[in-house]
């Protein structure tokens, strides 16, 4: 187990290095740089040059890369020129909001997704199953920004029961979290459905029935837990994706999370923030995947942690 964790962390470090490098290459490939944005439309070529050299942007890329890598190793992600403070500080400040949103959405998705999935998967092919599957597909097909704006119009404007935008309070969390959880719920439901449906055809379910258990007992005692492994894997992956991918929802609901920070930073070519945010998100994805694997190993004693994928 400890060896496994160490090995996975080593792979994680390698992945982080890949992410760090990729983000470096990618942001520097993009046309326009920090100097263009900082100086705005009125800049003269001379001013641009001066600023570039003072920022070190005129050095050869490999050199910039090396010094950047050196800084990252020392956990120094540089100063954000937009925010005028260490980039990591800014990123960390936004992190809790993102975590709140993601956790709330994930919790909802797990609860409702599991219920729907179990209900559907317990009788594969039944009318209920088809209904749930179709609804899940429909939920996955809703453009999130559309749902978000409709929610605002309905719950904030018409019914006036929930605030429309901003962060902080629990009430503020409801709409964005629900919006974010809709496609996720659908995914969890579909995963659970297929897992449960498959487990239902396993021989040990027959064994459980042969002991005289009721269908509910069979389901809760022998089916659900056994079908969770792919669900856990997906939740692990998806939560990671949500961390960085909730941009649209954060924008619609003015939720001060990492996604909108990242998009803004890319637009402003705030390299330091882009890099810091990407690394943090990458780290989370890696840790969550690791966590999912550990949970799976706890769920299923047959899984030897190393034999992943």
């Amino acid at each position, binding site marked *: *187990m*400890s*060896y*496994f964790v160490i*090995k996975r962390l080593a792979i994680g470090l390698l992945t982080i290095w890949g992410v760090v490098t990729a983000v470096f290459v990618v942001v520097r490939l993009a046309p326009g740089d920090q100097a263009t944005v900082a100086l705005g439309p009125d800049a003269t070529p001379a001013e641009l040059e001066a600023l570039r050299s003072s920022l070190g942007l005129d050095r050869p890329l490999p050199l910039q890369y090396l010094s950047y890598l050196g800084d990252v190793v020392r956990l120094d992600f540089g100063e954000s020129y937009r925010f005028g403070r260490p980039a990591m500080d800014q990123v960390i400040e936004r992190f809790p909001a993102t975590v709140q949103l993601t956790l709330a959405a994930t919790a909802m998705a797990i609860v409702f997704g599991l219920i729907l999935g179990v209900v559907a998967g317990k009788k594969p092919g039944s009318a209920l199953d088809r209904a749930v599957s179709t609804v899940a597909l429909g939920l996955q097909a809703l453009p999130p920004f559309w749902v978000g704006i409709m929610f605002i119009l309905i719950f904030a404007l018409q019914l006036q029961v929930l605030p429309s935008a901003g962060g902080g309070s629990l009430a503020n969390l409801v709409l964005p979290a629900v919006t974010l959880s809709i496609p996720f719920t659908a995914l969890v439901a579909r995963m659970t459905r297929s897992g449960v449906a498959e487990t239902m055809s396993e021989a040990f379910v027959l064994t459980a029935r042969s002991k005289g258990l009721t269908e509910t007992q069979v389901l809760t005692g022998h089916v659900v837990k056994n079908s969770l492994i792919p669900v856990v894997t997906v939740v692990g992956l998806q939560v990671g994706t949500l961390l960085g991918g909730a941009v649209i929802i954060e924008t619609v609901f003015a939720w001060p999370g990492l996604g909108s920070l990242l998009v803004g930073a890319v637009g402003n070519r705030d390299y330091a923030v882009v890099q810091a945010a990407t690394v943090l998100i990458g780290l989370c994805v890696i840790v969550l995947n690791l966590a999912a694997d550990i949970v799976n190993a706890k769920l299923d004693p047959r899984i*030897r*942690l*190393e034999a992943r994928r």
Partner: protein
Amino acid sequence: MSSPVLEIRDLRVVFTGPRRSLRGGRTVVQAVAGVDLDVRAKETLALVGESGSGKSTVARCVLGLVRPQAGTVTYEGRALGPVDKRPAEVQRAIQMVFQDPGSSLNPRMTVGAIIREAWKVHPAVAPEGDRRQALADVLADVGLDAGVAGRRPSALSGGQRQRVSIARALALRPRLLVCDEAVSALDVSVQSQILRLLVDLRRTHDLSVLFITHDLAVVRQIADRVAVMRTGELVECATAEQLFTAPAHPYTRGLLSAAHDLEGTRAGFEHTREQIR
């Protein structure tokens, strides 16, 4: 006695499992621990032993699907490497029949395509022009009519599939046929059909056969010599007659007595058999 077609010397195979902890080292399975074995021309050598004793691993080494940690496999004096490094002629000469007729044939291909594929790789065996005839011949050899060539494995019964499997091997005119549990998955009534076919083919095609099984009764019916494996080692190797009448090793004796145990109303069967004759 004829000289060995296949010689296995001091074969060792180790499978390493995943590491459990940093210092704990890997779990290591010594699947084959120093096996010496000869298969002589035109003989049937049975390899028996309980599950996990390493029989299949030996077979896979012979075919070059598993790379042994140590030891040599020699075919007619030539040392053999992994399957894709072998000279075409050796690839052709050693063929295999698998246990599960359901999974040893590509379900997406027709029987004809499966057999022709062999000739695509080794065109010399059946020249371009007379493949149709060759196909009919090889199917006839295993007791199938030419009509099945257009069918897919899923449209065949288990026995028929196993015949196709044998036909695929025979299509390359091999010298040595490795059968890994070739009849174990078949119904009793079909099992005899396939066994009989194998015995006939061996005679007509001058084959040497390495026959792997855990069923001692079958061994008794068809083997010339028997090698007994246990946890990766060869515990005994003798002619069939010798082994069944005077087993030398206690482990062999144990196996035999367990088999006897199951024989139950043996007398009843004998009686029946007499009646039929």
